[in-house]
């Protein structure tokens, strides 16, 4: 459930129902942007069932790797501690 895929907003159409074209790699689809009023062309949004449900936070996107770095450092520290 809840298949959500990140795509890049290419353009927006303002109006009673905010719409926009969103690119998923080389695939482009029309998507409802009413729930992401802040999303602008160039932003990435997570799309589910034809609706953008969230804007992707580029900073938040790096946290996984930061976490992994920390893990590595911890492991090194632990490794360093052992002998």
């Amino acid at each position, binding site marked *: *459930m809840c*298949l959500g895929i*990140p795509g890049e907003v290419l353009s927006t159409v303002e109006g009673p129902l905010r719409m926009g074209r969103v690119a998923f790699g080389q695939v482009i689809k029309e998507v409802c942007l*009413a729930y992401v009023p802040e999303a602008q062309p160039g932003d990435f949004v997570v799309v589910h069932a034809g*609706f953008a*449900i*969230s804007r992707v936070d580029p900073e938040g996107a790096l946290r996984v*790797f930061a976490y992994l770095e920390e893990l590595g450092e911890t492991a090194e520290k632990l490794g360093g501690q052992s002998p």
Partner: protein
Amino acid sequence: MRYVEEYRGAEEAHRFVQALHARVTRPWTLMEICGGQTHAIVRFGIDQLLPPGLTLLHGPGCPVCVTSVETLDKALAIASRPGVVFCSFGDMLRVPGSERDLLSVKAAGADVRIVYSPMDALALAERLPGREVVFFAVGFETTAPASAMAVHEARRRGLRNFSLLAAHVLVPPAMEAILADRNRRVDGFLAAGHVCTIMGMEAYGPLARAYRVPIVVTGFEPLDLLQGIHMCVAQLEDGRAAVENQYARAVRPPGNAPAQAMLQAVFEVVHRTWRGIGPIPSSGLGLRAAYADWDAERKFGVSAVGGREDAECRSGSVLRGLLKPPECPAFGTRCTPETPLGATMVSSEGACAAYYRYRRFTGP
């Protein structure tokens, strides 16, 4: 694809796996809530990389699996009416009601169509003014805003030949039902990331505290899942039980305000029966009175006829994490994706189907 490929790297995944092996000292059982997470786990074989003793259970986060037989029977009754165009997401078509499924009423002549979005159903209603277009609104908090918008737009545009069979369900009450079970096996949750993009994380604090269970809001890519598992295990090993956010790139703690407002305007919280699990109070969304004219149940006067679930099916136990699918006596013999006894054998995200399709043979 950006924000997809980065989270599938084998090298990073193995670093996570190593870290997990290093961190785990005891057996733990985690449940991923969302069927989308289940799907990614089996697709990438993540479960096979985990340290022995670290077990993943598939949760109830698949609307196909939990929509009640009663609701399905209503859907079948409405779809069979002459003049109705019944629109549904693809996977609902194979779920058995008391006696039939949507595919078989379609084969018997009903006009049942697969849509990608509730807005596609709305567009159909505009294109077919002489027909009654009904959208089968299943799904969790992630999907409900889409249904809400469709009804809202139908009212705004004056489309009276559109209606919703509302069957939306809410995640936190189901998690509480699982936690409250005295036989529970679940030590920690990977909460459903996309549900949280809408609803935020606030609902989980009380649960984590009350049941002393770690809850990590988790995304859907391999690295997301591995990190979520690691965060959960770390809490367990440390004896903590907090709500944490692994899926920070998409989930903000307060959630999506415009979507919540729309949900609030269109729906109200109702009791719902979950397939396999039974009734859970305040666990669903139904249309408010202001939208009664777009309520398919009202429009077609379908009454609850108390659908029967298959007596042999143990999907309730599967959904609550009490049983692994192969432990069900019907699994793979009387119950297969071609002849499903329970909904969990139907959806590709259903726990039983996932086991059957991806794990039936042991070894490569």
